[in-house]
């Protein structure tokens, strides 16, 4: 076996060992407990596959996940743009900061009346997802944009960078690691809010089916949808990580030299 194949294999083992052990433990625990509400994974997974390859895929998974991805992307763009604005402009922050902090603090389930009033109860899924997924990106971007090193700010000023260069060439890259932390948080929140938003006013989506299964006490099906959410979250997160690795390739931590940088082990 080549060295590359071996490192690849070690990587895969490292990544999945704990997960598999956890699944095995779960299987064992649920088999011992024999609780109707906690079916073993070996019951859930076949149900899940069955659901995936049923009409539910096209009717529910695709539209729901499509909304989720669109909402997340829009939240990401808006969050980064607003975050840079608020992070670099004390004036914008003083005007808008309190408003955003108030909006952020209102629990999304309580906003239904407002969404019904503004976009209508049947169209509220996308705005709800954007509203839920916006905040981690926004807050983290503000943090990142504020934290641009003073010498770099001075350098940019001295060389009279254009506003575009300043935002896209200096502030954004400097904030990017934090932006990615926000994007990853947002991604899972988008999945969560997707489910919540499908509880009312929706005729399709995973959340819709999940609640239906819950109300019908179709326990394995309910679990199948819960696990599906986990799978989707993991999938999209992995894709995002690939993008992150590319975007942050310049970071010293990605150099081969610095494998265990943080505490130097």
């Amino acid at each position: 076996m080549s060295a590359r194949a071996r490192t690849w294999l070690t990587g895969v083992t490292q990544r999945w060992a704990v997960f598999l052990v956890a699944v095995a433990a779960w299987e064992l625990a649920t088999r011992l407990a024999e609780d109707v509400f906690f079916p073993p994974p070996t019951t859930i997974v076949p149900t899940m596959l069955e659901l995936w390859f049923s009409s539910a895929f096209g009717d529910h998974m695709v539209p729901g996940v499509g909304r989720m991805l669109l909402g997340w992307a829009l939240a990401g763009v808006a969050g980064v743009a607003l975050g840079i604005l608020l992070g670099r402009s004390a004036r914008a922050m003083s005007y808008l900061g309190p408003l955003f902090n108030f909006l952020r603090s209102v629990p999304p389930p309580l906003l239904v009346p407002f969404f019904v009033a503004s976009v209508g109860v049947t169209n509220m899924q996308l705005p709800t997802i954007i509203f839920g997924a916006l905040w981690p990106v926004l807050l983290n971007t503000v943090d990142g944009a504020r934290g641009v090193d003073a010498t770099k700010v001075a350098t940019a000023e001295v060389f009279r960078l254009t506003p575009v260069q300043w935002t896209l060439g200096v502030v954004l890259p400097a904030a990017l690691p934090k932006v990615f932390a926000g994007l990853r948080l947002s991604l899972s929140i988008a999945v969560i809010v997707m489910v919540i938003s499908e509880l009312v006013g929706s005729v399709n989506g995973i959340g819709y089916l999940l609640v239906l299964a819950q109300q019908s006490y179709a326990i394995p099906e309910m679990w199948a949808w819960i696990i599906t959410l986990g799978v989707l979250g993991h999938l999209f997160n992995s894709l995002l990580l690939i993008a992150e690795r590319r975007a942050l390739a310049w970071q010293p931590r990605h150099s081969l030299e610095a494998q265990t940088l943080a505490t130097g082990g």
Partner: protein
Amino acid sequence: MVPPGLVGVVGLFAVWELASRTDLVPSNYLVPPSVVLPTMVGLLGDAEFLRALIATTLATLIAVVIAVCVAVPAGLLLGSVSAVRRAAMTLVEFLRPIPSVALIPLAAMTFGTGPDTKIILAVYAAVWPILFNTIYALDELDPLHVDTARAFGTSRVGVLGRVALPSAAPFVLTGVRLSTAMALAVVISAELFAGGSLGIGQFIMLAGSGGAYMDQVLAATVLAGLIGYAANAGLERLHRRLFFWTAPKEADR
């Protein structure tokens, strides 16, 4: 002169007032702020509501404290030992997108409908922002800081506690700010959907059940937002106090 911070909020209320005064939506459904605000003041003098308010606030607070105690050490560990990180992340990424709300019936079934359930669910939602911000902050840790500490014979744990933690702290606190809002949202959702537990969510569920007290529903909603707002303002003040060394030197510019 109006403080600038109020401009946005006042604008929001103006839009709301306008929306409910026009016939877009029955005004008994989206009650205008001119009705809601007096109701809000009334609620603050209502013992039953105050108990609900305290119950929700306290549950949120407990959840955030637990989340910090769990997520910060876990984040330090995951952020500093790449083998642990690789091993744990698959499971974490799998668990993260599972909505607390979907777990409410199961949790209610397993843990009952007392405050434990809502706190557990809120902790589940609140650990992730803190955990992630801790991990990412460690990734951004200046390697020279680590080298400096190590060169002076600081142990790995010492480096974690004396270098990694302080330099990560500002971003961790941002995570805590995110978590607080999420914990509040989950606590209230659990009160709304799981039942049996006193709090703002239950108050809103009751007030809304007959369709007659939308003003109370909205007043409680605004107050829930204000709790989160106050918590955030407190955390921001803490941030400025503790992490003055990260503040942009605006004054000089």
